[in-house]
């Protein structure tokens, strides 16, 4: 499959791994991750849910073992996937999402979430909607922008995840402090960014 690049500065390739049911490698700027999906597969007895599939997410940093911060990312990605899947179609099974970080120069969370979505689409898992994450930065002059020149100091950072049907906010994660107005502005700006991402998803799937 061809690598598709876009004005959103994303490039992506689907189905690069042979063993998982779905996989994607995705770069946003200089940040790159690989996501792989297994599912629905056999579930560990401890995590068995009788009415739906249980979703598990594993996040591997580029070196060393996953730490406490990575657990937070895992829980965010797992919750987003749980919301978007039709999990009740496969009771007593598990869907495993594995994410491997390759390179990080900012916006790692949003990159991981987008890779997870594309891998899910590649795996053919039944989803209520697609999701896409956008990272928005605010500098010390209170200007908001979507692309970060790496290494630059920022006052605040926002990550928003939107659904593809009604463009509602599934998840939000912030760093730094900001006013309510700035937060709302960031949501608006990110919403525009996510539209581009959904069109990009479609382009990738069609290619």
């Amino acid at each position, binding site marked *: 499959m061809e690598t598709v690049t876009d004005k959103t500065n994303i490039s992506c390739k689907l189905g690069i791994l042979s063993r998982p049911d779905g996989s994607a490698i995705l770069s946003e700027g200089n940040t790159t991750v690989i996501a792989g999906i297994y599912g629905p597969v056999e579930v560990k007895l401890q995590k068995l849910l009788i009415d739906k599939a249980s979703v598990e997410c594993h996040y591997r940093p580029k070196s060393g073992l996953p730490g*406490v*911060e990575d*657990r*937070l990312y*895992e*829980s*965010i*990605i*797992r*919750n*987003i*996937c*749980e*919301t978007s899947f039709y999990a009740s179609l496969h009771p007593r099974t598990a869907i495993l999402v594995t994410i491997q970080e390759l390179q990080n120069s900012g916006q790692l969370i949003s990159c991981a979430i987008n890779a997870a979505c594309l891998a899910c689409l590649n795996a053919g898992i039944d989803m209520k909607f697609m999701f896409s994450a956008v990272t928005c930065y605010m500098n010390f002059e209170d200007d908001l922008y979507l692309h970060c020149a790496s290494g630059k100091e920022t006052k605040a950072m926002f990550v928003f*995840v*939107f*659904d593809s049907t*009604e463009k*509602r*906010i*599934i*998840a*939000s*994660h*912030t*760093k*730094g*402090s*900001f*006013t*309510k107005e700035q*937060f*709302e502005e960031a*949501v*608006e700006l990110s*919403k525009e960014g996510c539209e581009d991402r959904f069109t990009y998803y479609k382009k990738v799937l069609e290619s």
Partner: protein
Amino acid sequence: MAEQYKSLHPIKYYRDYLAHGIRPDGREFNKFRPILLNVGSIDTADGSAIAKVGNTTVVCGIKAELCKPKPDAPKCGFLVPNLELPPLCSPKFRPGPPSDQAQVLTQLIADIIENSKCIDLNDLCIFQDKLVWCLFVDFVCLDFDGSVVDACIVSLLGALKTAKLPFVEYDPALDNIQVNMEERKHIKVHSTPVSTTFAVFDDKVILKDPTQEEENLCSGILTVVFKDDELCCVHKPGGSPLTQEELSQCIEESKERTLFIKRLIDTAV
């Protein structure tokens, strides 16, 4: 009869209550549970507090230790938060290494402390490149009944504002440390972050300050942290999607509570 109904059809039980605009514990959707804060509860810690939000109880203790700073930040001290969720607080937890939830909440609390800048790590410096304070902020949950982060942040502020560090004299020529335990001074707390948790039930009803039961049944959780007039954390780890209007309304509502909690902390300290 109501008991059986509740355990057989918990979601339907809640729906029936919420359709009448009230929650099973008698609160309206936008009402908080009473908050209690007791400071200086533990003698052996350098600072401590117990916070209760309804039944949720969190004990916070601060222990200060001297250590050497990192070479890349010679003036910065350390602040290490850790939340423990023992089996005592809820049947959900088993003894052993910290559960995923404990790790996620610990990271969230660490993020809130960092984002709100309530402690300036440079204040913890005693002698550049040689000696700084390392504050271990330990939270132990005694009763896990929803909105644990809210209780943690209230107890954190209570503990930080009452914590006193001994006076330390450092002689760089002899590498000699002298600690004066009698003479103690407060840590400077730069801001008062206040956290508010919301739960989204059935994708439409938003419940403030949810109990554990509500958190389990609901489809999404949202935590908003205000520091004075600024937001410093809007954390929604997935769950049912919210529109921008709903999100703004939650932010507005949590702002109203900020002043009240701030007054509570100031009175207690």
